[in-house]
């Protein structure tokens, strides 16, 4: 423990906290102060005591602990803190095209140069394939996606609200009686409150989904901004939880944060395996329980389709509803032929399109409870 041996303990701790923050642990000043207090109750010269004092006060989740262990080993061995932050992967988010005066090829012959489209143009845009948009059209579509309000299907909450009808509210009734000298002047009634179900979005970011991953993530952003309980994951060659990153108010900033966090853009897909990882780590613990789960993928499974089928069955048992949005479904003559899709479909409640703005708007209706036809 050479670092703590001769220099001021607090200085050492603050230096350690800085190393820790560089490693991605949220060691706020409040937490650092708690660590200093904690070490004062223990033996500052014992390595184990300092380790546990820091771990109890500076960490806040099991993910933090691995980072903490590395930083602790490095810092108290006297090493320079290695940059532990993951290297930024290839940037995929495209620069935002400023809605310029140039007109798109397909626009009809009116003179309005702004992309703030008229009703009929929006209508055409709504149904256009998201993979075939011009830069300015994409901008309009992005804005329209941001205005979608995907709300989970309602369920009855365990909390009550006041109501004119419904069962008696004993507490409020008696309270009112007390105010009136014990006379039951008025019977108060209550109803269960209604809350939206949690929305869980699993977005495929593999190569075959490339033009559609961005709109789906924007859809996820619209949902996550409006409902704090929404969970968002990406799958490609690995599973990434992007719920934190996607919460940024600005869609483009949120999307670049997501890009930074996802290391496997445009790779292959191992849907079954990753779905299993999702269910083991998050889904079964509670994230998927009673939730509306949307899988946005083309169903191109590189791995074993049987595994995908099993995991979809598991997901279906946990979730309230499973919705699969497939961008290829909307194309004329589409048949679910890929092995992955065939294995997954028996365990899907709603199989919907995902290739256009209209399809995304429809998806928002489906997650909020409107039934769609099963393929």
């Amino acid at each position, binding site marked *: 423990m050479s670092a703590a041996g001769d220099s001021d303990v607090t200085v050492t701790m603050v230096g350690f906290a800085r190393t820790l923050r560089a490693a991605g642990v*949220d060691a*706020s000043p*409040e*937490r650092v102060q*708690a660590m200093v*207090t*904690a070490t004062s*109750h*223990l033996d500052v010269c014992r390595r*184990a*005591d300092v380790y*546990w*004092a820091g*771990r*109890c*006060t500076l*960490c*806040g*989740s*099991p993910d933090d*602990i691995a980072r903490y262990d590395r930083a602790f080993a490095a810092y108290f061995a006297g090493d320079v803190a290695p940059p532990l932050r993951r290297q930024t992967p290839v940037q995929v988010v495209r620069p935002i095209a400023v809605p310029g005066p140039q007109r798109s090829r397909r626009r009809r012959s009116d003179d309005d140069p702004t992309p703030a489209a008229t009703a009929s143009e929006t209508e055409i845009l709504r149904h256009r394939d998201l993979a075939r948009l011009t830069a300015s059209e994409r901008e309009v579509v992005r804005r329209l996606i941001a205005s979608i309000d995907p709300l989970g299907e309602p369920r009855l*909450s*365990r*909390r009550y609200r006041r109501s004119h009808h419904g069962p008696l509210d*004993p*507490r409020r009734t*008696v*309270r009112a*009686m*007390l105010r009136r*000298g*014990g006379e039951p002047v008025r019977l108060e009634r209550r109803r269960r409150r209604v809350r939206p179900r949690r929305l869980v979005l699993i977005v495929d970011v593999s190569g075959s989904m490339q033009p559609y991953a961005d709109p789906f993530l924007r859809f996820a952003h619209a949902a996550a901004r409006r409902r704090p*309980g929404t969970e968002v994951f990406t799958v490609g060659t690995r599973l990434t939880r992007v719920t934190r990153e996607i919460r940024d108010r600005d869609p483009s900033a949120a999307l670049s944060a997501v890009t930074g966090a996802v290391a496997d853009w445009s790779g292959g897909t191992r849907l079954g395996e990753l779905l299993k990882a999702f269910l*083991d780590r998050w889904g*079964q*613990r*509670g*994230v998927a*329980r009673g939730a509306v789960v949307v899988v946005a993928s083309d169903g191109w499974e590189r791995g074993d389709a049987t595994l995908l089928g099993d995991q979809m069955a*598991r997901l279906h048992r946990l979730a309230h509803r499973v919705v699969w949005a497939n961008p290829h479904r909307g194309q004329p003559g589409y048949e679910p032929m890929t092995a992955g899709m065939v294995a997954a479909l028996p365990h899907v409640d709603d199989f919907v399109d995902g290739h256009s703005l209209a399809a995304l708007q429809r998806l928002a209706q489906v997650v909020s409870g409107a039934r769609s036809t099963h393929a």
Partner: protein
Amino acid sequence: MTPDVTSPQQLVQLLDEQGYFADEGLATAAYLALSMRRPLFCEGDAGVGKTALAGALARVLDAPLIRLQCYEGLDAAQALYDWDFPRQLLHLRAGEAAGIADADRLEAEIYDRRFLVARPLLQALETTPSVLLVDEVDRADDEFEAFLLEVLSDFTISVPELGTIHAETPPVVVVTSNRTREVHDALKRRCLYHWLEHPDLAREVAIIRRRLPAATDALAEAVARVARVARGEDLLKPPGVAESIDWTEALLALGAHDLGADNLDRAAASLGAFLKYREDQERVVDRIAEWAAAG
């Protein structure tokens, strides 16, 4: 009566006497919770002994354990306090019957401390010393987290009709979570955080032996070995220590004293005490003998 705990090592000893085997990390976290008067936030898989820790701490401190089980919709009337309306009404009627005409006095009387029913959080503040267990806080909703935060940050509860109730000595608080959802950072920041791992082989054997003195060493060790391998096997629901104990108990009831070849039928028959998914049982059932002998 309350022994003074002066070091984590001593706490290990004291917990051991109460039948709880804590490792150094957990003992240090619990020791800090006692000496810093901060709530201890325990996370970990189901069955690693989060709830049992609170019970053991209560016995070490010779303090009552006050438990609040969380669930969705838990509200202030169930967690903090509630007015005893029937008694208040009776008091009102009794006052009228006795001919007390002073309405103001009657009203002041019905909002007295004796008509307040203390729920777990208020009970814990009013009982010194006490150990408060807020169990499975991840099952509660955001609304509950908000007022739990208020209580845990300054250990006061304000009752509008009565005033603020302050804890003389804050209770020892253990908050547990199974991580079914992410608990708000603000709550975690006010707590000491500890992630509980499954115990190692020797500790698990000791726990089983302590809880079930009738179990032989051979049986306890075989079960612990199977449990250890099973946790690394990617099962749908890995067994916790609680399941190991249940299974050992089931095996004992069936008359098995080890997991040798002649007891494998019994092991298979009682596997439901250990693994709670059919898929998991199918994967494990043929390999019990192999795992029980694994180094």
